[in-house]
């Protein structure tokens, strides 16, 4: 399906995006700093909740510390709030130039985002996690393979998030102004993914509905649960399998929506 030349183009795109982010050192520092401050706020509040009974929704304090700090690190890797260029290109019509290129629009979008995530993993992820390790009692996985599973889970989370944001961006073909769709995405992904609090503190039926019916827990709750070994390795594998399923569903959905969007596109002559 993918020829070697296409792969080479996509790799070059990912590399270019990596270098692009590497240029903005002040912004990277500022982002990591902010994630770290929020790490302290969230870590203290969750620990204070857990202090009453010694645990919170099945997480012991050390697991909560890991959950919060690694979550703050992942926030920039699994990019919820990234700047969106595609909707603006759809609105102005520049997307026509993208469609004329011999590389698929969705593949371009994903490759660029993987490059960005790679840069974030080396910078934005490291800083909050290091601060959390120094300042608090961190839960470290008991098994070596957990790290490998976590790495796979993070990659899948990035892909799920990219696919979701791609769908939001494609809505520009119908709506032109995607701010509304973006807001819905922000609210739903923030509350449903474990970003503000582990979703396991919610009622059981709601947790189940989120895991089965939405891709949101795959964005953050899944990799974090894998890392703190909640429910053991078997449960971790199940979570990763769920993420794979969501990637497949979202990519398929992306293909369908893209095909329809392109058919809708009208090139204004002139």
């Amino acid at each position: 399906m993918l020829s070697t030349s296409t792969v080479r183009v996509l790799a070059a795109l990912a590399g270019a995006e990596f270098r692009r982010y590497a240029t903005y050192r002040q912004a990277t520092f500022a982002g990591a700093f902010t994630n770290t401050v929020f790490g302290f706020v969230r870590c203290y509040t969750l620990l204070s909740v857990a202090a009453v009974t010694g645990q919170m929704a099945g997480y012991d304090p050390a697991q909560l510390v890991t959950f919060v700090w690694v979550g703050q690190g992942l926030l920039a890797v699994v990019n919820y709030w990234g700047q969106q260029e595609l909707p603006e290109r759809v609105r102005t019509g520049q997307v026509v130039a993208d469609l004329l290129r011999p590389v698929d629009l969705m593949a371009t979008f994903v490759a660029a985002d993987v490059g960005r995530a790679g840069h974030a993993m080396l910078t934005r992820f490291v800083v909050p996690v290091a601060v959390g390790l120094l300042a608090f009692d961190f839960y470290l996985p008991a098994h070596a393979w957990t790290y490998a599973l976590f790495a796979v889970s993070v990659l899948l989370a990035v892909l799920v998030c990219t696919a979701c944001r791609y769908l939001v961006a494609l809505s520009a073909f119908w709506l032109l102004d995607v701010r509304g769709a973006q807001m819905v995405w922000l609210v739903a992904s923030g509350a449903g993914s474990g970003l503000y609090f582990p979703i396991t503190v919610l009622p059981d039926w709601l947790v189940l509905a989120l895991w089965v019916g939405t891709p949101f827990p795959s964005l953050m709750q899944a990799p974090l649960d894998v890392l703190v070994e909640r429910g053991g390795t078997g449960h971790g594998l199940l979570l990763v399998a769920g993420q794979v399923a969501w990637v497949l569903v979202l990519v398929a959905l992306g293909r369908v929506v893209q095909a329809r969007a392109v058919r809708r596109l009208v090139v204004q002559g002139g």
Partner: protein
Amino acid sequence: MAKPYSKLLTAQIRSQTQYRFSFGIDLFFSTVLTSLDLVTVWVLFSVNGSLGGFGGREVLLMVGIAALSFPLADLAVGNVERLRVFVRTGLFDAVLLRPLSPLVQLVTMDFAPRRAGRVVQGTVIYVVALLNAPVQWSPVVWGLVLVAPIAGAVFFGAVFVFFATVAFWWIDVGEISNAFTYGGKDVSAYPMTVFGGWFRRFFAYGMGFAFVAYLPALAMLGRPDPLGVPDWVRWCSPLTALLVAVLAGLFWRTGVRHYRSTGS
């Protein structure tokens, strides 16, 4: 004197409410988005029925003061964050050329009426909190009930201005201000007993975020600070707000004098 400002302001409001449907959606969702903070506090609180040794009604009072002060500040001066765009593009030249205050111009030029929804939301929460909390009503407490959200708003406004001013030196570090504006809002809404170590000393008392909601709420409830702050300090939030505002103003002036445009 205020005429040109009010003209700028009304022009801005008219232009932004021109597309009514889009404005309505924006207003609605930006209000929903802020209620996520409240949902978070409520979810955390409901795990054990207490937060940092305080019960629900007490925590709600702190949340209420913070939930009203922050949107007030955000509505009034939140746009100052866009200063970095003005500095980067050199548009700040035009701002300086006009015979009006640069700060007030910045604030009025990008005034965002969609943020008004959050002020309404914050007011409702504050009133509900006041009706339910065991407030020790007296004339002085009445005064504090009215002044506390305004002092909090002045405080947050000063924080907005202070960190936006950094853009005169470093343009790309804008996100740092989020740590203190949005981060400060999160810190203020919780009892300070939740936090610990140097983080509490620095954020709550050093930077003064305890004065926004926590200390005034304690004064209204007639409770001493379990962390040992003297009782009279609980009433000092208007003074701290004033002090921080003066500091931010001085920093802003230094920043404006430091501005060197973009060159050609």
